[in-house]
């Protein structure tokens, strides 16, 4: 093992060695910072543009939230007018836009017309269940998808390849809502000799008063069907990308080298082919992570999961513009932040990006 000084045998003084190394590190850091700054500015611009488009779209929707809220209830025109004034619905669009921008900048997301409470509070109380559902389903679908994709791509045309590609693409084509209802009917009602195994909705048994471990298992039991629905629909994209990436790597010389070293075929795949093939998957995984909070609208509605997806569905129904705008900000921000992270991580994983 050579000592650090051996790198530059001409230099005698330690300082003479240190200075150029520090400069190289600085250069690397400043390059990274410049790259990060560029990406950050691009992300902020995307966020601003997205918010403006979102506001415009929500504002041009034909809507009278007060009449929807009071639909079928005895209300006088005076009551409706008072409600419009209280909720700020009668304010001009430019005023609402300035309020919206102000809310976004300060993090105070306004006041829901429908729930008559702060949007931040509403989102805060529902983001946990959404993260639990989407987090668990993403982890499972990533692991399952990448594993199947790697094995399928390694032996294209094999039985495993044909079965996994066929099954995953079929499930990907199935509407999430429909699949959810089918699984719900099968497993929460039972069929034939199979009893009802999983609950039909909710996140825990009402009024559960058992131990903490029991509660965790109770939530797990409620989580299975919504999580399974999401996994079945989503994992195909990981299978597809991983499969094609592995196929691209099949003829690479470094795999020949690995085989020449006497490694078993499985080790060649796991240790050499998969790490290289993983790169394109990273982007997809992060895009999926960005859509975490937004992706569960239908599943949360089918399984009565108390998360952000259902909150958005409710907001659209009225439409409750402050709540809709609030959830829109959260969804947009999460996707943009995850894209930014993917860009950063890609640079770490792939030396070619660093070299550009």
């Amino acid at each position, binding site marked *: 093992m050579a000592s650090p000084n051996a790198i530059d045998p001409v230099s005698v003084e330690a300082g003479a060695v240190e200075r150029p190394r520090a400069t190289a590190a600085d250069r690397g850091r400043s390059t990274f910072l410049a790259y990060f700054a560029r990406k950050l500015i691009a992300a902020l611009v995307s966020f601003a543009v997205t918010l403006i488009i979102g506001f415009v779209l929500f504002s041009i929707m034909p809507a009278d939230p007060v009449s929807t809220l009071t639909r079928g209830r005895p209300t006088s025109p005076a009551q409706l007018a008072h409600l419009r004034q209280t909720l700020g619905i009668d304010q001009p669009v430019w005023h609402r836009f300035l309020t919206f921008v102000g809310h976004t900048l300060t993090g105070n997301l306004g006041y829901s017309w429908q729930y008559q409470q702060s949007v931040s509070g509403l989102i805060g109380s529902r983001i946990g269940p959404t993260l639990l559902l989407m987090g668990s389903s993403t982890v499972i679908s990533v692991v399952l998808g990448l594993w199947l994709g790697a094995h399928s791509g390694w032996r294209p045309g094999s039985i495993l390849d044909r079965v996994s590609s066929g099954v995953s693409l079929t499930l990907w084509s199935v509407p999430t809502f429909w699949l959810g*209802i089918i699984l719900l009917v099968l497993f929460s009602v039972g069929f034939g000799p199979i009893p009802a195994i999983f609950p039909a909705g909710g996140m825990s048994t009402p009024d559960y008063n058992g*131990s903490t471990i029991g509660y965790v298992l109770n939530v797990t039991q409620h989580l299975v069907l919504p999580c399974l629905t999401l996994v079945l629909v989503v994992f195909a994209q990981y299978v597809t990308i991983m499969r094609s990436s592995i196929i691209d790597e099949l003829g690479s010389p470094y795999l020949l080298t690995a085989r020449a070293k006497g490694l078993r075929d499985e080790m060649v795949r796991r240790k050499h082919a998969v790490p290289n093939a993983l790169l394109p998957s990273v982007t997809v995984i992060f895009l999926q992570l960005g859509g975490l909070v937004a992706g569960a609208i239908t599943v949360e509605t089918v399984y009565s999961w*108390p998360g952000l997806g259902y909150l958005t569905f409710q907001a659209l129904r009225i439409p409750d513009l402050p709540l809709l705008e609030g959830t829109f900000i959260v969804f947009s921000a999460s996707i943009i932040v995850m894209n930014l992270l993917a860009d950063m991580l890609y640079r770490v994983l792939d030396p070619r990006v660093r070299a550009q």
Partner: protein
Amino acid sequence: MTSVRNRSLPRSIRRGLAAAAALGLVAVVGLIGVGSTAASAASETTLTVAAPSEISTFNPFLSYFDSELYILNSIYPALTIGDAKNIPEPYLATKWSTSTDKLTWTFTIRSGLKWSDGKPITAADVAWTYNLVMKNATAATANGSLLTNFAKVTAPNATTLVITTKTPQANMLYTSIPVVPQHVWESKVSNLKNFKNMQFPVVGYGPWQLVGYKTDQYATLKANKDFFMGAPKYDRLVEQVFKNSDASVAALKSGQLEQDAEITATQFKALKNAKNITTYQQEPTGWTGIEINPGAITRSGKSIGTGNPILKDAKVRTAIAWAIDRKTLVTKVLDGLGQTGAGYLPSGYPQWAWQPSASQAINYDPAKANQILDDAGYKKGSDGIRTDPKTHKKLTFRLGTHSDTTSDSQIASYLEGWLKPIGISLDVQPMSFTQLNANLLKGDWDILMDAWKTGADPTYLLSIQTCGVLPKDDGTGANTDAFYCDKSYDADYKKQTQQFDQGERATTIRDMQSKLYDANVDIMLYYADGLSAIRTDKVATYMYGKANSGGIFPHQNLFYNWRTATPAATKSSSHTGVYLGIGIPVVAIIAAVGVVGLRRRSTAADRE
């Protein structure tokens, strides 16, 4: 060598096995816990019902959603409450009297009742609540319209409440609102708009006390064993939120729920032969109909909107009424679970319901419809569509339907099919509720789908057919249902507000319905029965009243259902499903951890 390798397993494998062992232990402990919880739950009875809507607040001054209103009715008292026939009976008020000028009502408040925190319930609490709603615009959000005719509410002593009205008010006993404890709510008034009333247990009085709520999941209520009308038979009540009706029906089938009060006709049929489930029909409390624009005008009589002027001709509207086969709609759209439409007020409130006599009734008769139009001079063209003799325009009308209501599109198809043979074509235009409502109030419509549900007091539903709720000339103040305006109807409307004898009032209200029927501006198509399903293996009695010969029960009041529901004799239920439901995911996780550990072990020798 082998024995040495076995003794020193790689760290990752050891970790994997340890994790698997820990998970296994957790599963065993958890399953035991679940089993014991199920066993302990047997000693306390819980009635779990499906919430018909979302829940956002328990503040009775702001509450709009049905799920909240059902709970609020059970945790706060009111002066009166609808009895089994939905006619007001004493609750907080034990008796009442009215002054000779009919402007002053004196109520005697029940003594000896206490709020759940032990403080006495007095007339002062009632007066304070009513005055808050009358004077504070935020407090008036939910129930303000019920008290607009109130001039003054006072409590001269603990058991006397005096209400003075601006004009005689015959529906006074129907206007009871939830009464809250003054000593709790006084401090909430300054921030009433933001107060959700979610500090549990909620101080109140009623058959139940609200003791908990989990956001978007369920509300828990505890029985008030001292309730003066009789304690609930169950110890606890859970109102669980289901975000789609298929899920709540699945929960009913699996025993997760005991009652679902709002199922569809398809679900009703599917549950008809389900094990341990009984389905019930109730008298309807709402109607579905069409409204025909009779010529939209403002209060001053100025014409507005783009309504087709041909529909001003009562003969055209009458012909349309004769061309509609209401029986087929009940059979096809409601699966037979409803009644054909006629009177404006549904049979769920028999004290007001009205049906036309045989000579007045308009039934399906396309020949008669054709005859009416022929006689009126509307000649059919070569395409079969009639033409107005004056304007030479075809009888083609827009039909606005609610895009979010499936039955609207079904009905529209039938209407198209029935009106074409009488020479009328329809241009069906599905639109959002908001858009349809906006078009309605501007008069920009020809024919619209319409539906209403009503409570026991029909005053509001009757009021939206009066001339006084037409829009002003500036377009504001509109609350009309279909631009119907008839001075004699208005006179009847005013008369019934002052008829304190409820029998006389009912006669006037029936006369009003007769006038509406003849005008054919609002044509009632059908009344859908209320459909519900109960787990009869778990709930012994739930429904009250007697079913009629068609098996239809009177319209039910959840205040009574929840209080009088009786648990069925307990049977030892199987927990196989629960154990499987928890066991399967845990075993899957253990298996995954184990597989990873074993794979790492099997490839340990190959590592570079």
